[in-house]
């Protein structure tokens, strides 16, 4: 199946990478080609910057260009629109400033390669996406940046394509493990269990240490479901392990959606094994995993092997390499 077939039902589609150079923009460019071949009108924005010629951190790495057809809609800065040399019609100024200039929503009157740098903040990304849909885009593609995930929140987008690749590790098994953990987080189950629920005080999950957590657990001896209003960092989960285990408490932590959880070294499965369950109130629709078997200026895995390992470790999500001969 092609990306287009897998994502056609999603009006706002986010592309998120697990790290820099995992091939987000290649996946987006492949989908753009498919949409253009099907004659569909698309809208494009980026939470970072897309279509630049060289990597912003390592200038030895060349980046894929973003080529749009006439009639495409996009959100990018006024300077980048001007620099593209492509004729365009300005549709709306959403009032968003970025370090690269002021964002405009425009319709291209010609085809060509262009740098896309739309709003960074999630609420602004949603606003420009909706504006492009209102101006006639059939689907809006939202490209991520580096490893930022906020655009995949259900408050911003309807579905997600994740990018992963060799750049995560020299060891192919580590790439698979890391990807499996990240996908498990994206697909957190919905909160459906019963039991006494406790809303954590504001910012408690950001700062509480083991002692404060122990006091809270003792003050609410029968609470089994802890509601986290904002961010849930791994530091908090690690600090929770000992007080929970000492009291023989199995706990479920509930967040608004998976983008609120910040794991670094361990996945949801590991915490489950230690009696800490993660749940979300809203789901993210993961449509596909795009892989880049090449780590720029480092190493390369066999694409089919990497895809095979990922498919075996992660059930029920198509795994694609859009640059491989057997794609489509």
């Amino acid at each position: 199946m092609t990306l287009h077939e897998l994502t056609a039902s999603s009006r706002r589609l986010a592309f998120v990478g697990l790290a820099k150079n995992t091939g987000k923009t290649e996946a987006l460019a492949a989908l753009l080609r498919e949409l253009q071949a099907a004659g569909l009108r698309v809208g494009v924005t980026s939470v970072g910057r897309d279509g630049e010629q060289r990597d912003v951190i390592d200038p030895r790495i060349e980046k894929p260009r973003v080529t749009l057809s006439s009639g495409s809609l996009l959100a990018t800065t006024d300077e980048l629109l001007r620099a593209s040399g492509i004729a365009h019609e300005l549709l709306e100024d959403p009032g968003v400033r970025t370090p690269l200039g002021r964002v405009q929503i425009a319709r291209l009157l010609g085809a060509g390669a262009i740098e896309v740098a739309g709003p960074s903040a999630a609420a602004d990304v949603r606003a420009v996406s909706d504006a492009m849909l209102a101006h006639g885009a059939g689907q809006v593609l939202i490209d991520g940046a580096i490893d930022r995930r906020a655009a995949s929140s259900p408050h911003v987008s309807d579905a997600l394509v994740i990018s992963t690749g060799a750049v995560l590790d020299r060891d192919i098994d580590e790439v698979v493990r890391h990807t499996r953990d990240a996908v498990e987080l994206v697909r957190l189950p919905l909160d459906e269990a019963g039991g006494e629920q406790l809303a954590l005080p504001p910012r408690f999950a950001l700062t509480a240490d083991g002692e404060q957590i122990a006091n809270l657990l003792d003050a609410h001896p029968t609470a089994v479901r802890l509601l986290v209003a904002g961010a849930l960092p791994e530091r908090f989960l690690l600090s929770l392990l000992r007080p929970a285990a000492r009291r023989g408490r199995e706990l479920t932590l509930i967040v608004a959606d998976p983008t609120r959880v910040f794991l670094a070294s361990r996945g949801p499965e590991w915490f489950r094994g230690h009696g800490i369950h993660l749940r979300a109130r809203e789901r993210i629709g993961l449509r596909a995993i795009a892989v880049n078997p090449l780590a720029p200026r480092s190493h390369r895995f066999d694409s089919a092997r990497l895809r095979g390992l990922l498919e075996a470790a992660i059930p029920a999500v198509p795994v694609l390499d859009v640059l491989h001969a057997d794609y489509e």
Partner: protein
Amino acid sequence: MHEVDLAAVRPYADHLDDGLVQMSFTLPVPYSLAARRAALELAGAMGFAEPEVVHYEQLTEGYTYFVMYGRCTQTVDFAALQGEGFDIEYMSEDEIERFARERLGRGVVVVGASTGSDTHSVGIDAMLNLKGYHGHHGLEGYRCFQTYNLGSQVPNSVLLARAIEVGADAILVSQTVTQQNLHVHNLTELVEMVEAEGMRGRMILACGGPRVSNELAKELGYDAGFSKGTEPQHLATFLVRELAARVSAPS
């Protein structure tokens, strides 16, 4: 005297358009005539016309240091680059105080730290502390700023909690960005946590470090990036102007 052609600019040394460049580098080869020839050949391969070794010496056993001249034959179209990005005109300290008083009418709360495992606090200290940098005192010395410098190796979650607690208008983080993903991840994680706390629309996020450009800041999700050469009043100008823009046009 003739005019500079802004569409085809090249380096200036003795006279306009001579293209003369001075460069220095070290080759990992023993100090010798062959080393000198290697340097000339390398400069030629770099595209320099008439390369010349003006000085070379042994750096240490097996290494030779060169100072060279060469004529650059390339030009750059400066005219096409003008107006890219945002060139802001910086205000003086007095102008910043007056701007804050007249346009904001209240103090500006700024929380700064070096995050994650980064032990370098030089950048954040230069921007925030009274002592400042380059003869310009830091934001702490302004009447219009209330600053909190949390120091180095501060976890993102702790920085964010403190920022919310004191009602910060801006968070300033300093990070030495390398080609390793870790530092970059530290910077993106803060942005994502601010989003997760629902505070992104209410805080200005700025990052600084030796390799931080506006292009990188955009990728990372920050409102501005500051690098080498930034003085406290540059940061201060950005903060009061950006805050004023947000007050007049809430998004």
